[in-house]
């Protein structure tokens, strides 16, 4: 069915508890990350001493403002030797693509058991005002004075243009928020478990009009680690392997620094920037959007889910609004269940890792909101500055 037989698989996922912003303290961010790594090893049936590779994204960022250090992980967890330690550049756009980096290490023979980890702890710096807090530099001096103080503020400008060009309505963004909240209601670890209505959405405080509070992802703390190894080795481990069908990261020059630049041509401006990556991803996988059974779409801001649905070909460019409003993305009754875990809008935000976790559970057949018969899951990284990324996971037969 797919273009080539998968060669690597995800074999373990570990997660900490999820917390509202700042509430994970007094546990440190390295403690959260270490706990997730140990949990992922335990789940896989591996010893932490088996880890010989680290494949990060977001420049090995430990949330925002601090960095992971592989040597410190080795020292604190007792990992004897590492033969690969690398990261994708930029930010959360690389979340899904980090599994491709792990795959590259394994296929190249650089490492055998590769961990990808992300943790977020917002005790000091809130993500929501990260740009306002950063020191001025010659490039951001062309953006920062405008008062666009966080990522959602920047993406509200893209959203406005999408609404203008295609007639997209706020009702579509509401449907994304409402449907994902619906998916979180039965999840013990979800931060938000009260249903929301269209009325709640339209009564929510405007933050960066056209985006309101319910369009913004949660500000939470937690850590998730994922272990990737060769499919051969995976077969001997504790969990049913989840094959990596394809992974891709990158982006076009027209997207580039995206909303840190705002110079994108019109069609790219009102997009998620994923179009070129989606093309590579499907080609590598040998499948198309019609083959995807469940989509775990990076949802830092609800309109960017809609624009990714367009860029990944689930509907035509500009038709994301009607597609979403038709109920197509609902877990119950939708043609393409989206963010069955509640996503970053309702479950927990760990910079894309919850989407990989849910993709793995869907392909194992163990998801809380399991999509019956699902055989291919799409996982995406955040629409953000280059790179953006995508991942297709399959079911081990």
């Amino acid at each position, binding site marked *: 069915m797919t273009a080539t037989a998968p060669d690597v698989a995800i074999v373990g996922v570990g997660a900490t508890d999820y917390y509202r912003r700042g509430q994970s303290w007094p546990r440190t961010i390295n403690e959260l990350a270490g706990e997730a790594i140990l949990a992922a090893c335990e789940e896989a049936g591996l010893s932490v001493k088996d880890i010989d590779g680290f494949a990060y994204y977001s420049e090995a960022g430990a949330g925002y403002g601090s960095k992971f250090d592989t040597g410190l992980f080795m020292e604190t967890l007792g990992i004897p030797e590492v033969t690969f330690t690398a990261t994708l550049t930029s930010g959360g756009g690389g979340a899904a693509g980090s599994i491709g980096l792990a795959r590259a290490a394994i296929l190249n023979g650089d490492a055998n058991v590769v961990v990808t980890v992300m943790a977020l702890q917002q005790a000091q710096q809130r993500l929501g005002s990260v740009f306002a807090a950063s020191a*001025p530099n*010659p490039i951001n001096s*062309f953006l920062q*004075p*405008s*008062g*666009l103080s966080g990522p959602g503020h920047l993406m509200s400008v893209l959203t406005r*243009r999408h609404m203008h060009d295609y007639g997209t309505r706020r009702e579509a963004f509401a449907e994304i928020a409402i449907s994902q909240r619906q998916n979180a209601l039965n999840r013990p670890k979800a931060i938000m478990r009260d249903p929301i209505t269209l009325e709640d959405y339209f009564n929510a405080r405007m933050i*960066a*009009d056209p985006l309101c509070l319910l369009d913004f992802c949660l500000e939470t703390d937690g850590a998730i680690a994922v272990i990737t190894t060769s499919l051969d080795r995976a077969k001997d481990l504790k969990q049913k392997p989840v094959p990596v069908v394809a992974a891709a990261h990158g982006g076009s020059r027209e997207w580039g620094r995206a909303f840190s630049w705002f110079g994108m041509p019109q069609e790219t401006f009102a997009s998620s920037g994923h179009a070129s990556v989606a093309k590579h991803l499907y080609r590598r996988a040998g499948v198309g959007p019609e083959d995807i059974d469940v989509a775990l779409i990076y949802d830092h801001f609800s309109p960017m889910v809609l624009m990714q649905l367009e860029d990944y070909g689930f509907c035509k460019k500009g038709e994301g609004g009607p597609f979403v409003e038709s109920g197509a993305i609902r877990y119950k009754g939708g043609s393409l269940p989206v963010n069955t875990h509640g996503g970053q809008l309702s479950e927990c935000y760990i910079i894309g890792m919850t989407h990989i976790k849910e993709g793995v559970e869907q392909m194992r057949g163990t998801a809380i909101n399991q999509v019956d018969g699902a055989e291919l899951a799409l996982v995406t990284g955040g629409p953000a500055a280059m790179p953006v990324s995508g991942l297709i996971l399959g079911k081990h037969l």
Partner: protein
Amino acid sequence: MSAGLTQALPGEQVRITTDPHTEPFWEAAKEGRLVALACGDCGTFRMPPTPFCPNCQSKAKNWVELSGRATVFSFSIVHGFPGIKDIVLAAAVLDLEGAPGARLVSDIVDVDPDDVHIGMEVEAFFSPISDGWKLPLFRPVTTG
């Protein structure tokens, strides 16, 4: 000023830094002139100013003085800023007249937020910020 009109961040809170490629923009702003960088060889505009022309890779620079008029390509009405809870900003991405392909991100001030729209014509003025620099801000073009 009516409480409902858009503002800009207080100038004393706005800081910029420059490098050799960006400094001419800010030096011109200090003198009340809006300029944009064009390639000295092929004429392609680029903003923010960077070392190479992305079209022909030339390092030759031509700083072009503009009319100061611009058109709103997109915008956001921002409610609040860290430390300034009640401020309302009309943060806009602007197409600059006379510099096709070059955009500037700035604020449209002294306007009812409901009046801001894509395609709106605005014009620059220059407002003091920290360290003696001036920031280009925009107001609607006054007709008649």
